[in-house]
């Protein structure tokens, strides 16, 4: 403890000086906008502070959008986690080095593929004049609803889950499985008593990451569904670009604050999970 204090005192001044530009830029580029945002969210029409804006976001139509965003993110997180984990396990146990390399590389690419280009690719496939829509004789609007959006979000969520869970699955030592089998455990018992508990933090951490990604996504939804699926990100963009009545700017700020609170909760779950899962992967 005293050694640490001494070291800090010795090099501390110069050290903080070296970090000063970073801290200053963060303060200006991040601190100021966030403070303005929080302050604006609590500002009341005609001056003063209050909860007017925030309570307005807890009424229709905003609460509906918030709820719909939360529901979509939960569906994507749950679906992405299950499918991603199964896909990763299928690939890792296939004993084909080529398949493994190909899937992990493709996951790296697709996990970073989002925004409007993602929407375009799915519109060409399942949109109203999409190739699959025509081939299967699906009616119009098959893609432009809640479940269509969930399907499209899975396109980057499942690969992200594969990337998150693959190291954890690799860390599941074959000896544990052999030991369980030697003691008479069935496959189900192995997964229930050994596999899932060891993978638990990684699975939950990954699910939370997918939830956050789907919750924050804006561009794909804007290009795909427009206003037909109410989402909090779409509401914020509308309020910001003036697609709504004048005087609702502070609603955008309050909705943003709602989003940040959700993201904070998400991170409060994710960070401890990440620490815990790294324990097994040493």
């Amino acid at each position: 403890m005293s050694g640490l204090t001494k070291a800090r005192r010795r090099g501390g001044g110069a050290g903080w000086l070296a970090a000063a530009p970073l801290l200053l830029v963060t303060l200006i580029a991040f601190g100021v906008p966030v403070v303005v945002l929080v302050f604006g969210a609590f500002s009341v029409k005609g001056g003063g502070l209050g909860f007017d804006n925030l309570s307005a976001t807890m009424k229709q139509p905003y609460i509906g959008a918030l709820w719909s965003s939360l529901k979509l993110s939960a569906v994507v997180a749950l679906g992405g986690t299950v499918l991603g984990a199964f896909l990763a396990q299928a690939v890792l146990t296939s004993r084909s080095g080529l398949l493994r390399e190909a899937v992990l590389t493709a996951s790296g690419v697709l996990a970073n593929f989002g925004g409007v280009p993602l929407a375009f690719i799915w519109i060409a496939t399942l949109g109203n004049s999409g190739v699959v829509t025509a081939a299967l004789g699906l009616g119009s609007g098959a893609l432009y609803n809640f479940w269509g959006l969930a399907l499209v979000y899975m396109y980057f969520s499942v690969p992200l889950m594969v990337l998150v869970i693959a190291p954890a699955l690799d860390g599941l030592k074959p000896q544990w499985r052999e030991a369980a089998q030697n003691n008479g455990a069935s496959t189900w018992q192995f997964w229930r008593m050994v596999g899932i508990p060891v993978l638990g933090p990684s699975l939950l951490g990954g699910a939370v990451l997918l939830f956050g990604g789907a919750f924050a996504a804006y561009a794909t939804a804007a290009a795909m569904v427009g206003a037909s699926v109410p989402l909090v990100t779409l509401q914020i963009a509308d309020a910001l670009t003036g697609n709504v009545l004048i005087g609702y700017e502070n609603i955008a700020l309050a909705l943003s604050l709602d989003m940040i609170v959700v993201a904070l909760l998400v991170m409060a779950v994710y960070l401890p999970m990440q620490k815990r899962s790294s324990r097994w992967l040493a």
Partner: protein
Amino acid sequence: MAGVTWRRVTLGVAGVYFLVPLAISVWFTVYNETQGFSLGAYGRIVSAPGFTESLVKSLLLGAAVIVLVLLLALPALLAVRLGAPGLRPVLETITTLPLIVPPITYVVGIANALRGGTDALAATPFWQTLISIQDENFPVVLVLAYVMLALPFAYRSLDTGLRAVDVRTLVEAARNLGASWPYVLFRVILPNLRSAVASASFLSLALVMGEYTIAALMGYRTFPVWIVTISGNDGQLSVALSVLSLGLIWLLLLTLSGAGRKSK
């Protein structure tokens, strides 16, 4: 065997789900019932108005973000290792911030701060500064925002790179031999960090080349924003651009893993 069946089903379903949209998109861009096979859609990208302009703008923004991220993050990361361990939690917090503040809320904050700032500073010399950082041709505001978004990735890859280097010994040796601090940074530390710097740079570039929300809502025509505006009614062109941007991500990632592999 049950084990083989579930694996085949999983791989089959995943294959259909991930490959069919890609195959359809590529097919859609090169085949047309009236014209047959043609790479015309890809040719139209280059000749579309604003292509060069927006691409150059995004590449310039990317270059500025890379330089700034490295200049800000490297000294701070070195300081953590050279006797200011108290900085580490501060840096960890800074680099988690963009995960807590989603881009759409970040842009709301920036827009309001700029609006409030220009009103409040109207009578002072700072007003001119605030206007000039919002310049359409080279928006410094966007550079700063992207630096904040790129920091988490850049910080982690640089931190991993520094873990493999005995920074303290290198710096003390160089300083004892009379090297100046800039010399230490550019001629001693950086050459040892080539792959980490490369991956931090590529991650930052990938971010700048793909970010849509902030640029679009602030009204800047960067490459990703141009893709959307130009697509308009030309379905083939829009899908061709999507395929192209997927290719771009793939290329960046390939370069990234290539840079990472060389270091081993």
